[in-house]
Protein backbone atom coordinates (compact mmCIF):
# COMPACT_ATOMS: atom_id res chain seq x y z
CA UNK A 1 0.00 0.00 0.00
CA UNK A 2 1.33 3.42 -0.98
CA UNK A 3 2.11 5.80 1.88
CA UNK A 4 -0.03 8.92 1.54
CA UNK A 5 1.78 12.18 0.79
CA UNK A 6 -0.62 14.11 2.99
CA UNK A 7 -2.39 12.72 6.04
CA UNK A 8 -4.55 14.64 8.49
CA UNK A 9 -5.92 12.98 11.60
CA UNK A 10 -8.55 14.79 13.66
CA UNK A 11 -6.94 18.09 12.81
CA UNK A 12 -8.57 20.80 14.92
CA UNK A 13 -8.00 24.51 15.36
CA UNK A 14 -9.71 26.79 17.82
CA UNK A 15 -9.42 30.59 17.80
CA UNK A 16 -10.83 31.37 21.20
CA UNK A 17 -14.46 30.30 21.07
CA UNK A 18 -14.40 29.82 17.30
CA UNK A 19 -13.79 26.29 16.05
CA UNK A 20 -12.23 27.01 12.65
CA UNK A 21 -11.33 23.39 11.86
CA UNK A 22 -13.10 20.56 13.58
CA UNK A 23 -11.53 17.07 13.67
CA UNK A 24 -10.61 17.02 10.00
CA UNK A 25 -9.25 13.72 8.69
CA UNK A 26 -8.25 12.86 5.15
CA UNK A 27 -5.34 11.58 3.13
CA UNK A 28 -3.91 12.32 -0.29
CA UNK A 29 -1.99 9.77 -2.33
CA UNK A 30 1.25 10.60 -4.16
CA UNK A 31 0.65 12.24 -7.50
CA UNK A 32 -2.97 13.01 -6.71
CA UNK A 33 -4.79 16.35 -6.84
CA UNK A 34 -7.04 16.65 -3.82
CA UNK A 35 -9.51 19.50 -3.86
CA UNK A 36 -10.74 20.96 -0.60
CA UNK A 37 -14.01 22.58 -1.59
CA UNK A 38 -15.85 24.99 0.62
CA UNK A 39 -17.26 28.44 1.00
CA UNK A 40 -15.28 31.33 2.41
CA UNK A 41 -14.89 30.90 6.13
CA UNK A 42 -15.32 27.14 5.96
CA UNK A 43 -11.80 26.46 7.31
CA UNK A 44 -9.86 25.75 4.13
CA UNK A 45 -7.15 28.32 4.68
CA UNK A 46 -6.75 27.41 8.34
CA UNK A 47 -6.30 23.78 7.28
CA UNK A 48 -3.60 24.70 4.77
CA UNK A 49 -1.82 26.89 7.32
CA UNK A 50 -1.73 23.98 9.77
CA UNK A 51 -0.54 21.51 7.15
CA UNK A 52 2.25 23.86 6.11
CA UNK A 53 3.44 24.53 9.70
CA UNK A 54 2.35 28.18 9.62
CA UNK A 55 -0.20 27.51 12.32
CA UNK A 56 -0.02 25.08 15.22
CA UNK A 57 -3.08 22.79 15.48
CA UNK A 58 -5.06 22.90 18.71
CA UNK A 59 -5.25 19.12 18.53
CA UNK A 60 -4.86 16.33 16.04
CA UNK A 61 -1.92 15.48 13.82
CA UNK A 62 -0.78 15.78 10.25
CA UNK A 63 1.97 14.10 8.30
CA UNK A 64 3.36 15.57 5.09
CA UNK A 65 5.65 13.43 2.94
CA UNK A 66 6.30 11.27 5.99
CA UNK A 67 7.08 14.17 8.36
CA UNK A 68 4.99 15.24 11.32
CA UNK A 69 3.99 18.91 11.09
CA UNK A 70 4.34 19.47 14.84
CA UNK A 71 7.55 17.54 15.49
CA UNK A 72 9.39 17.93 12.17
CA UNK A 73 8.35 21.34 10.82
CA UNK A 74 11.67 21.97 9.06
CA UNK A 75 11.38 18.69 7.17
CA UNK A 76 7.77 19.46 6.27
CA UNK A 77 8.83 22.84 4.89
CA UNK A 78 11.61 21.29 2.86
CA UNK A 79 9.20 18.71 1.41
CA UNK A 80 6.39 21.02 0.45
CA UNK A 81 5.70 24.15 -1.51
CA UNK A 82 2.93 26.58 -0.70
CA UNK A 83 1.02 29.33 -2.40
CA UNK A 84 -1.13 31.21 0.04
CA UNK A 85 -4.49 32.81 -0.61
CA UNK A 86 -2.99 36.13 -1.65
CA UNK A 87 0.13 35.95 -3.80
CA UNK A 88 2.85 36.64 -1.23
CA UNK A 89 5.22 38.81 -3.20
CA UNK A 90 7.14 42.04 -2.70
CA UNK A 91 5.92 44.44 -5.41
CA UNK A 92 9.20 46.36 -5.33
CA UNK A 93 11.33 43.38 -6.31
CA UNK A 94 11.70 42.00 -9.82
CA UNK A 95 10.60 38.45 -10.53
CA UNK A 96 14.21 37.35 -10.83
CA UNK A 97 15.24 39.06 -7.58
CA UNK A 98 12.33 37.40 -5.82
CA UNK A 99 13.29 33.91 -6.97
CA UNK A 100 16.94 34.59 -6.17
CA UNK A 101 15.95 35.62 -2.63
CA UNK A 102 13.92 32.44 -2.16
CA UNK A 103 16.78 30.30 -3.47
CA UNK A 104 19.27 31.96 -1.13
CA UNK A 105 16.93 31.58 1.85
CA UNK A 106 16.73 27.90 0.93
CA UNK A 107 20.56 27.86 0.98
CA UNK A 108 21.07 26.83 -2.61
CA UNK A 109 24.46 27.73 -4.08
CA UNK A 110 24.68 30.97 -6.04
CA UNK A 111 25.08 29.24 -9.42
CA UNK A 112 22.23 26.85 -8.66
CA UNK A 113 19.98 29.72 -7.60
CA UNK A 114 20.60 31.56 -10.85
CA UNK A 115 20.01 28.46 -12.96
CA UNK A 116 16.84 27.40 -11.14
CA UNK A 117 15.40 30.92 -11.20
CA UNK A 118 15.96 31.13 -14.95
CA UNK A 119 14.46 27.66 -15.43
CA UNK A 120 11.33 28.53 -13.44
CA UNK A 121 10.88 31.90 -15.13
CA UNK A 122 10.97 30.11 -18.49
CA UNK A 123 8.68 27.30 -17.37
CA UNK A 124 6.05 29.75 -16.16
CA UNK A 125 6.28 32.10 -19.13
CA UNK A 126 7.80 34.94 -17.15
CA UNK A 127 11.22 35.28 -18.83
CA UNK A 128 10.27 38.48 -20.66
CA UNK A 129 9.08 40.07 -17.42
CA UNK A 130 11.84 38.66 -15.23
CA UNK A 131 13.56 41.97 -14.66
CA UNK A 132 10.43 44.03 -14.25
CA UNK A 133 9.07 44.99 -10.84
CA UNK A 134 6.45 42.53 -9.61
CA UNK A 135 4.13 45.44 -8.92
CA UNK A 136 3.74 45.81 -12.70
CA UNK A 137 2.72 42.15 -13.19
CA UNK A 138 -0.88 41.15 -13.92
CA UNK A 139 -2.75 39.02 -11.38
CA UNK A 140 -2.14 35.90 -13.48
CA UNK A 141 1.59 36.61 -13.74
CA UNK A 142 1.83 37.16 -9.99
CA UNK A 143 0.06 33.85 -9.38
CA UNK A 144 2.42 32.05 -11.77
CA UNK A 145 5.42 33.57 -10.03
CA UNK A 146 3.95 32.55 -6.69
CA UNK A 147 3.63 28.95 -7.85
CA UNK A 148 7.12 29.06 -9.36
CA UNK A 149 8.36 30.20 -5.93
CA UNK A 150 6.62 27.29 -4.24
CA UNK A 151 8.32 24.91 -6.66
CA UNK A 152 11.85 26.29 -6.26
CA UNK A 153 13.09 23.35 -4.19
CA UNK A 154 11.20 20.81 -6.34
CA UNK A 155 8.95 19.73 -3.46
CA UNK A 156 6.99 16.50 -3.86
CA UNK A 157 3.93 18.08 -2.22
CA UNK A 158 2.31 21.36 -3.22
CA UNK A 159 -0.38 23.30 -1.36
CA UNK A 160 -2.37 25.77 -3.42
CA UNK A 161 -4.73 27.92 -1.39
CA UNK A 162 -7.34 29.31 -3.78
CA UNK A 163 -4.76 29.75 -6.53
CA UNK A 164 -7.13 31.18 -9.12
CA UNK A 165 -9.07 33.48 -6.82
CA UNK A 166 -9.52 36.84 -8.49
CA UNK A 167 -8.12 35.76 -11.85
CA UNK A 168 -9.82 36.34 -15.18
CA UNK A 169 -11.13 33.20 -16.97
CA UNK A 170 -8.20 33.07 -19.38
CA UNK A 171 -5.59 33.24 -16.62
CA UNK A 172 -7.56 30.70 -14.63
CA UNK A 173 -7.52 28.22 -17.52
CA UNK A 174 -3.79 28.78 -18.02
CA UNK A 175 -3.17 28.10 -14.35
CA UNK A 176 -5.26 24.92 -14.49
CA UNK A 177 -3.00 23.70 -17.27
CA UNK A 178 0.03 24.40 -15.07
CA UNK A 179 -1.48 22.49 -12.17
CA UNK A 180 -2.32 19.50 -14.38
CA UNK A 181 1.23 19.59 -15.74
CA UNK A 182 2.55 19.42 -12.17
CA UNK A 183 0.43 16.36 -11.47
CA UNK A 184 1.75 14.77 -14.65
CA UNK A 185 5.24 15.35 -13.26
CA UNK A 186 4.27 13.42 -10.12
CA UNK A 187 3.64 16.31 -7.71
CA UNK A 188 0.98 15.76 -5.08
CA UNK A 189 -1.32 18.78 -4.94
CA UNK A 190 -3.74 19.88 -2.27
CA UNK A 191 -5.90 22.58 -3.78
CA UNK A 192 -8.43 24.64 -1.89
CA UNK A 193 -11.10 26.30 -3.92
CA UNK A 194 -14.53 27.80 -3.76
CA UNK A 195 -14.99 27.33 -7.49
CA UNK A 196 -16.98 24.18 -8.20
CA UNK A 197 -15.87 24.02 -11.81
CA UNK A 198 -12.26 24.21 -10.72
CA UNK A 199 -12.65 21.34 -8.29
CA UNK A 200 -14.51 19.34 -10.94
CA UNK A 201 -11.90 19.96 -13.63
CA UNK A 202 -8.74 19.50 -11.59
CA UNK A 203 -9.29 17.32 -8.58
CA UNK A 204 -8.96 13.55 -8.62
CA UNK A 205 -10.80 13.57 -5.32
CA UNK A 206 -12.72 16.25 -3.51
CA UNK A 207 -13.31 16.86 0.16
CA UNK A 208 -16.26 19.11 0.92
CA UNK A 209 -15.59 21.23 3.99
CA UNK A 210 -18.25 23.20 5.83
CA UNK A 211 -17.95 24.95 9.19
CA UNK A 212 -14.56 23.34 9.67
CA UNK A 213 -15.84 19.81 9.17
CA UNK A 214 -15.25 17.47 6.26
CA UNK A 215 -18.79 16.54 5.34
CA UNK A 216 -18.19 14.44 2.23
CA UNK A 217 -15.38 13.09 0.13
CA UNK A 218 -14.75 11.16 -3.06
CA UNK A 219 -14.18 11.61 -6.75
CA UNK A 220 -16.40 14.19 -8.45
CA UNK A 221 -18.32 11.32 -10.06
CA UNK A 222 -18.76 9.54 -6.74
CA UNK A 223 -19.97 12.71 -5.07
CA UNK A 224 -22.47 13.35 -7.81
CA UNK A 225 -23.69 9.78 -7.64
CA UNK A 226 -23.94 9.75 -3.88
CA UNK A 227 -25.27 13.23 -3.18
CA UNK A 228 -26.46 14.78 -6.38
CA UNK A 229 -30.06 15.25 -7.38
CA UNK A 230 -30.98 14.51 -10.94
CA UNK A 231 -33.93 16.18 -12.53
CA UNK A 232 -36.48 14.83 -14.98
CA UNK A 233 -38.42 17.45 -16.89
CA UNK A 234 -41.63 16.34 -18.60
CA UNK A 235 -43.59 18.59 -20.99
CA UNK A 236 -47.10 19.32 -19.69
CA UNK A 237 -48.40 19.61 -16.18
CA UNK A 238 -49.03 16.05 -15.03
CA UNK A 239 -50.37 14.77 -11.75
CA UNK A 240 -47.53 12.41 -11.03
CA UNK A 241 -46.99 13.26 -7.43
CA UNK A 242 -48.08 10.12 -5.62
CA UNK A 243 -46.64 7.62 -8.00
CA UNK A 244 -43.36 9.36 -8.70
CA UNK A 245 -42.65 10.29 -5.17
CA UNK A 246 -42.82 6.68 -4.16
CA UNK A 247 -40.17 5.89 -6.74
CA UNK A 248 -37.86 8.91 -6.60
CA UNK A 249 -38.46 10.08 -3.06
CA UNK A 250 -37.98 13.53 -4.53
CA UNK A 251 -40.30 16.42 -5.13
CA UNK A 252 -42.57 17.12 -8.08
CA UNK A 253 -43.38 20.61 -9.29
CA UNK A 254 -45.91 21.27 -12.06
CA UNK A 255 -45.85 24.79 -13.44
CA UNK A 256 -45.49 26.81 -16.61
CA UNK A 257 -46.43 23.83 -18.74
CA UNK A 258 -43.73 21.60 -17.33
CA UNK A 259 -43.51 18.92 -14.69
CA UNK A 260 -40.18 18.84 -12.90
CA UNK A 261 -39.26 15.81 -10.84
CA UNK A 262 -36.24 15.78 -8.57
CA UNK A 263 -34.75 12.30 -8.31
CA UNK A 264 -32.78 11.62 -5.17
CA UNK A 265 -29.34 9.98 -5.43
CA UNK A 266 -30.41 6.50 -4.40
CA UNK A 267 -33.38 6.34 -6.75
CA UNK A 268 -33.26 4.78 -10.19
CA UNK A 269 -33.76 7.12 -13.12
CA UNK A 270 -34.84 4.23 -15.37
CA UNK A 271 -37.48 3.14 -12.89
CA UNK A 272 -38.70 6.70 -12.51
CA UNK A 273 -38.96 7.12 -16.29
CA UNK A 274 -40.88 3.87 -16.59
CA UNK A 275 -43.30 4.99 -13.91
CA UNK A 276 -43.79 8.38 -15.53
CA UNK A 277 -44.52 6.80 -18.89
CA UNK A 278 -46.96 4.36 -17.32
CA UNK A 279 -48.89 7.23 -15.80
CA UNK A 280 -48.54 9.95 -18.40
CA UNK A 281 -48.22 7.79 -21.50
CA UNK A 282 -45.39 7.90 -23.99
CA UNK A 283 -43.97 11.36 -23.83
CA UNK A 284 -41.48 12.99 -26.14
CA UNK A 285 -38.94 15.59 -25.03
CA UNK A 286 -38.40 14.19 -21.57
CA UNK A 287 -35.09 15.58 -20.40
CA UNK A 288 -32.92 14.16 -17.68
CA UNK A 289 -30.45 16.57 -16.10
CA UNK A 290 -27.48 15.10 -14.31
CA UNK A 291 -26.45 16.55 -10.99
CA UNK A 292 -23.77 19.20 -11.03
CA UNK A 293 -21.19 19.54 -8.31
CA UNK A 294 -23.09 22.63 -7.24
CA UNK A 295 -26.18 20.46 -6.67
CA UNK A 296 -24.02 18.20 -4.56
CA UNK A 297 -22.72 21.13 -2.56
CA UNK A 298 -26.20 22.53 -1.98
CA UNK A 299 -27.46 19.10 -1.01
CA UNK A 300 -24.64 18.65 1.49
CA UNK A 301 -24.52 22.10 3.03
CA UNK A 302 -27.99 23.42 2.43
CA UNK A 303 -26.40 26.55 0.93
CA UNK A 304 -24.95 27.62 -2.36
CA UNK A 305 -21.32 28.53 -2.66
CA UNK A 306 -21.47 32.28 -2.68
CA UNK A 307 -18.26 33.43 -4.27
CA UNK A 308 -19.01 37.06 -3.68
CA UNK A 309 -19.79 36.80 -0.02
CA UNK A 310 -17.31 36.31 2.70
CA UNK A 311 -13.71 36.42 1.64
CA UNK A 312 -13.12 38.42 4.78
CA UNK A 313 -14.86 35.78 6.86
CA UNK A 314 -12.37 33.15 5.81
CA UNK A 315 -9.50 35.47 6.61
CA UNK A 316 -10.96 36.21 9.98
CA UNK A 317 -11.30 32.52 10.68
CA UNK A 318 -7.77 31.97 9.48
Amino acid at each position, binding site marked *: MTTPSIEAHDLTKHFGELVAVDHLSFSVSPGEIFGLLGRNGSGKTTTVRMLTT*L*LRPTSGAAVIAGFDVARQP*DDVRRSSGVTLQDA*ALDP*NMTGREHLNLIG*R*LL*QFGKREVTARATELLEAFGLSAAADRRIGTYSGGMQRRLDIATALFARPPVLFLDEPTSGLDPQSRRALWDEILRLRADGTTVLLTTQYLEEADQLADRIGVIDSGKLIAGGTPRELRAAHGLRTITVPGEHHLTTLVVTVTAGTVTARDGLTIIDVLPDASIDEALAQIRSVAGTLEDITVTKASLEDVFVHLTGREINTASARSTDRAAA
Partner: protein
Amino acid sequence: MNALTAATGPSSAVFARSVREGLRDPGPALFLPALPPLLLVIAMTSLFGRLNGVIAFPTGSFKEFFVPGAIMIVAIAGGGFTSAQVAEDLRSGFIDRLRLQVRGPLILLLGRFGFEAIRIIPGVAAVLCVGLLFGGALPNGLPGALVITLLAMLLSAAYAGLFYIAAIVTEDPQTPLNLNPVGIIVSFLSTAFIPRAAMPSWADTAAGLNPVTVIVDGARAAMIGDLTSATVAAALAVATAGVAISVVASGAVLNRKLSRG
Protein backbone atom coordinates in the same frame (compact mmCIF):
# COMPACT_ATOMS: atom_id res chain seq x y z
CA MET B 1 24.88 22.07 8.05
CA ASN B 2 25.58 23.79 11.34
CA ALA B 3 23.41 26.41 12.98
CA LEU B 4 25.80 29.23 12.04
CA THR B 5 25.72 28.36 8.36
CA ALA B 6 21.97 27.92 8.53
CA ALA B 7 21.65 31.46 9.87
CA THR B 8 24.29 33.36 7.90
CA GLY B 9 23.20 32.31 4.39
CA PRO B 10 19.56 33.39 4.73
CA SER B 11 20.52 36.43 6.81
CA SER B 12 22.87 37.63 4.09
CA ALA B 13 20.01 37.19 1.58
CA VAL B 14 17.75 39.37 3.74
CA PHE B 15 20.61 41.83 4.14
CA ALA B 16 21.01 41.99 0.36
CA ARG B 17 17.28 42.63 0.00
CA SER B 18 17.54 45.51 2.49
CA VAL B 19 20.52 46.93 0.60
CA ARG B 20 18.47 46.85 -2.61
CA GLU B 21 15.60 48.61 -0.84
CA GLY B 22 18.04 51.22 0.46
CA LEU B 23 19.58 51.82 -2.94
CA ARG B 24 16.14 52.14 -4.52
CA ASP B 25 15.26 54.80 -1.96
CA PRO B 26 18.63 56.24 -0.93
CA GLY B 27 17.26 59.49 0.48
CA PRO B 28 15.67 58.20 3.69
CA ALA B 29 17.96 55.17 3.89
CA LEU B 30 21.38 56.73 3.48
CA PHE B 31 21.27 60.51 3.48
CA LEU B 32 18.34 61.63 5.62
CA PRO B 33 19.91 60.38 8.89
CA ALA B 34 22.82 62.76 8.30
CA LEU B 35 20.71 65.83 7.63
CA PRO B 36 19.62 66.81 11.18
CA PRO B 37 23.11 66.31 12.69
CA LEU B 38 24.71 68.19 9.80
CA LEU B 39 22.40 71.13 10.39
CA LEU B 40 23.04 70.87 14.11
CA VAL B 41 26.81 70.88 13.62
CA ILE B 42 26.66 73.94 11.42
CA ALA B 43 24.15 75.80 13.60
CA MET B 44 25.45 74.82 17.03
CA THR B 45 29.13 75.36 16.32
CA SER B 46 28.38 78.69 14.64
CA LEU B 47 25.94 79.94 17.27
CA PHE B 48 27.25 78.43 20.50
CA GLY B 49 30.97 78.17 19.85
CA ARG B 50 31.62 80.66 22.66
CA LEU B 51 29.74 78.67 25.28
CA ASN B 52 33.11 77.58 26.68
CA GLY B 53 33.15 80.55 28.96
CA VAL B 54 29.73 79.77 30.41
CA ILE B 55 29.84 75.99 30.82
CA ALA B 56 32.91 74.01 31.72
CA PHE B 57 33.16 71.48 28.89
CA PRO B 58 35.32 68.48 29.73
CA THR B 59 36.97 68.83 26.34
CA GLY B 60 37.77 72.45 26.82
CA SER B 61 35.90 73.43 23.65
CA PHE B 62 32.19 73.28 22.87
CA LYS B 63 32.92 72.44 19.23
CA GLU B 64 35.17 69.52 20.12
CA PHE B 65 32.59 68.40 22.65
CA PHE B 66 29.62 68.62 20.29
CA VAL B 67 30.87 66.90 17.10
CA PRO B 68 31.06 63.34 18.56
CA GLY B 69 27.53 63.78 19.95
CA ALA B 70 26.29 64.93 16.57
CA ILE B 71 27.84 61.86 14.95
CA MET B 72 25.91 59.63 17.36
CA ILE B 73 22.71 61.46 16.42
CA VAL B 74 23.15 60.12 12.87
CA ALA B 75 22.38 56.70 14.36
CA ILE B 76 19.18 57.98 15.93
CA ALA B 77 17.83 60.38 13.30
CA GLY B 78 15.77 58.49 10.72
CA GLY B 79 15.99 55.37 12.86
CA GLY B 80 14.58 52.03 11.77
CA PHE B 81 14.37 52.73 8.04
CA THR B 82 13.76 49.05 7.30
CA SER B 83 11.02 48.66 9.91
CA ALA B 84 8.38 49.94 7.48
CA GLN B 85 9.23 47.02 5.20
CA VAL B 86 8.91 44.60 8.12
CA ALA B 87 5.39 45.89 8.73
CA GLU B 88 4.60 45.69 5.03
CA ASP B 89 5.87 42.10 4.85
CA LEU B 90 3.63 41.17 7.77
CA ARG B 91 0.62 42.95 6.36
CA SER B 92 0.98 41.50 2.87
CA GLY B 93 1.73 37.97 4.04
CA PHE B 94 5.17 38.03 2.39
CA ILE B 95 6.65 37.20 5.79
CA ASP B 96 4.86 33.81 5.60
CA ARG B 97 6.47 33.15 2.24
CA LEU B 98 9.89 34.01 3.69
CA ARG B 99 9.58 32.09 6.95
CA LEU B 100 8.56 28.96 5.08
CA GLN B 101 12.11 28.90 3.70
CA VAL B 102 14.07 29.39 6.94
CA ARG B 103 14.52 27.68 10.29
CA GLY B 104 13.36 30.51 12.51
CA PRO B 105 11.78 33.91 11.96
CA LEU B 106 14.62 35.67 13.79
CA ILE B 107 16.78 34.97 10.74
CA LEU B 108 14.48 37.27 8.80
CA LEU B 109 15.42 40.16 11.10
CA LEU B 110 19.17 39.61 11.45
CA GLY B 111 19.94 40.78 7.92
CA ARG B 112 17.85 43.89 8.50
CA PHE B 113 19.72 44.70 11.71
CA GLY B 114 22.90 44.38 9.67
CA PHE B 115 21.68 46.87 7.12
CA GLU B 116 20.57 49.29 9.85
CA ALA B 117 24.17 49.23 11.06
CA ILE B 118 25.85 49.91 7.73
CA ARG B 119 23.40 52.31 6.15
CA ILE B 120 24.51 55.16 8.43
CA ILE B 121 28.18 54.97 7.44
CA PRO B 122 27.86 57.64 4.70
CA GLY B 123 26.05 59.89 7.17
CA VAL B 124 28.68 59.37 9.87
CA ALA B 125 31.44 60.18 7.38
CA ALA B 126 29.64 63.33 6.24
CA VAL B 127 29.02 64.64 9.75
CA LEU B 128 32.57 63.81 10.80
CA CYS B 129 34.05 65.71 7.86
CA VAL B 130 31.74 68.73 8.28
CA GLY B 131 32.30 68.64 12.04
CA LEU B 132 36.06 68.80 11.54
CA LEU B 133 35.61 71.70 9.13
CA PHE B 134 33.54 73.55 11.73
CA GLY B 135 36.00 73.23 14.58
CA GLY B 136 35.88 69.60 15.69
CA ALA B 137 39.06 67.67 16.44
CA LEU B 138 40.28 64.16 15.74
CA PRO B 139 43.62 63.70 17.50
CA ASN B 140 43.12 59.92 17.54
CA GLY B 141 43.13 59.91 13.75
CA LEU B 142 41.81 56.99 11.73
CA PRO B 143 41.54 54.56 14.68
CA GLY B 144 39.42 57.09 16.50
CA ALA B 145 37.26 57.59 13.42
CA LEU B 146 36.81 53.83 13.03
CA VAL B 147 35.80 53.33 16.66
CA ILE B 148 33.31 56.19 16.58
CA THR B 149 31.87 54.75 13.35
CA LEU B 150 31.58 51.32 14.97
CA LEU B 151 29.78 52.82 17.96
CA ALA B 152 27.35 54.64 15.68
CA MET B 153 26.68 51.42 13.74
CA LEU B 154 25.95 49.49 16.93
CA LEU B 155 23.72 52.27 18.25
CA SER B 156 21.80 52.36 14.96
CA ALA B 157 21.19 48.59 15.07
CA ALA B 158 20.23 48.68 18.76
CA TYR B 159 17.86 51.59 18.24
CA ALA B 160 16.23 49.84 15.25
CA GLY B 161 14.83 47.17 17.58
CA LEU B 162 12.35 49.71 18.97
CA PHE B 163 11.05 50.37 15.46
CA TYR B 164 10.88 46.68 14.57
CA ILE B 165 8.81 45.93 17.65
CA ALA B 166 6.41 48.76 16.75
CA ALA B 167 6.22 47.49 13.16
CA ILE B 168 5.58 43.90 14.21
CA VAL B 169 2.95 44.77 16.80
CA THR B 170 1.01 47.17 14.59
CA GLU B 171 1.74 45.75 11.09
CA ASP B 172 1.48 49.38 10.03
CA PRO B 173 4.41 50.83 8.04
CA GLN B 174 3.57 54.35 9.26
CA THR B 175 3.67 53.64 12.99
CA PRO B 176 7.45 53.17 13.30
CA LEU B 177 8.01 56.41 11.42
CA ASN B 178 5.83 58.17 13.97
CA LEU B 179 8.30 57.10 16.65
CA ASN B 180 11.03 59.34 15.28
CA PRO B 181 10.39 62.12 17.85
CA VAL B 182 11.54 59.62 20.49
CA GLY B 183 15.01 60.24 19.08
CA ILE B 184 14.85 63.90 20.09
CA ILE B 185 14.08 62.98 23.71
CA VAL B 186 16.72 60.26 23.78
CA SER B 187 19.32 62.67 22.37
CA PHE B 188 18.54 65.64 24.60
CA LEU B 189 18.44 63.44 27.71
CA SER B 190 21.98 62.28 26.99
CA THR B 191 25.33 64.02 26.85
CA ALA B 192 25.09 64.51 23.09
CA PHE B 193 24.53 68.27 23.41
CA ILE B 194 25.76 69.39 26.81
CA PRO B 195 27.63 67.76 29.71
CA ARG B 196 25.62 66.37 32.62
CA ALA B 197 27.08 69.01 34.92
CA ALA B 198 25.22 71.66 32.97
CA MET B 199 21.85 69.84 33.14
CA PRO B 200 19.09 70.41 35.67
CA SER B 201 19.03 67.66 38.26
CA TRP B 202 16.06 65.75 36.74
CA ALA B 203 17.74 65.74 33.32
CA ASP B 204 21.03 64.72 34.88
CA THR B 205 19.28 61.75 36.53
CA ALA B 206 17.64 60.79 33.22
CA ALA B 207 20.93 61.11 31.35
CA GLY B 208 22.57 58.89 33.95
CA LEU B 209 20.01 56.18 33.22
CA ASN B 210 20.14 56.66 29.44
CA PRO B 211 22.44 54.11 27.76
CA VAL B 212 22.95 56.58 24.92
CA THR B 213 24.92 58.72 27.39
CA VAL B 214 27.46 55.92 27.87
CA ILE B 215 27.77 55.48 24.12
CA VAL B 216 28.14 59.21 23.43
CA ASP B 217 30.75 59.54 26.17
CA GLY B 218 32.62 56.61 24.63
CA ALA B 219 32.41 58.18 21.19
CA ARG B 220 33.80 61.41 22.59
CA ALA B 221 36.67 59.57 24.25
CA ALA B 222 37.36 57.66 21.03
CA MET B 223 37.50 60.85 19.03
CA ILE B 224 39.37 63.25 21.27
CA GLY B 225 40.25 61.38 24.47
CA ASP B 226 41.94 58.11 25.35
CA LEU B 227 41.05 55.50 22.77
CA THR B 228 41.98 52.68 25.13
CA SER B 229 40.06 54.06 28.11
CA ALA B 230 37.40 52.25 30.11
CA THR B 231 34.91 54.82 28.80
CA VAL B 232 35.36 53.54 25.24
CA ALA B 233 35.20 49.91 26.40
CA ALA B 234 32.02 50.61 28.37
CA ALA B 235 30.48 52.30 25.35
CA LEU B 236 31.27 49.33 23.12
CA ALA B 237 29.89 46.92 25.74
CA VAL B 238 26.67 48.89 26.23
CA ALA B 239 26.13 49.30 22.49
CA THR B 240 26.74 45.60 21.87
CA ALA B 241 24.39 44.66 24.71
CA GLY B 242 21.82 47.03 23.21
CA VAL B 243 22.04 45.24 19.89
CA ALA B 244 21.67 41.86 21.60
CA ILE B 245 18.63 43.01 23.58
CA SER B 246 17.05 44.51 20.47
CA VAL B 247 17.59 41.36 18.42
CA VAL B 248 16.26 39.05 21.11
CA ALA B 249 13.27 41.26 21.96
CA SER B 250 12.17 41.90 18.38
CA GLY B 251 12.74 38.23 17.52
CA ALA B 252 10.56 37.19 20.45
CA VAL B 253 7.81 39.63 19.46
CA LEU B 254 7.93 38.40 15.86
CA ASN B 255 7.86 34.77 16.97
CA ARG B 256 4.89 35.44 19.20
CA LYS B 257 3.08 37.29 16.45
CA LEU B 258 3.63 34.55 13.88
CA SER B 259 2.79 31.70 16.23
CA ARG B 260 -0.68 33.18 16.64
CA GLY B 261 -1.16 32.63 12.92
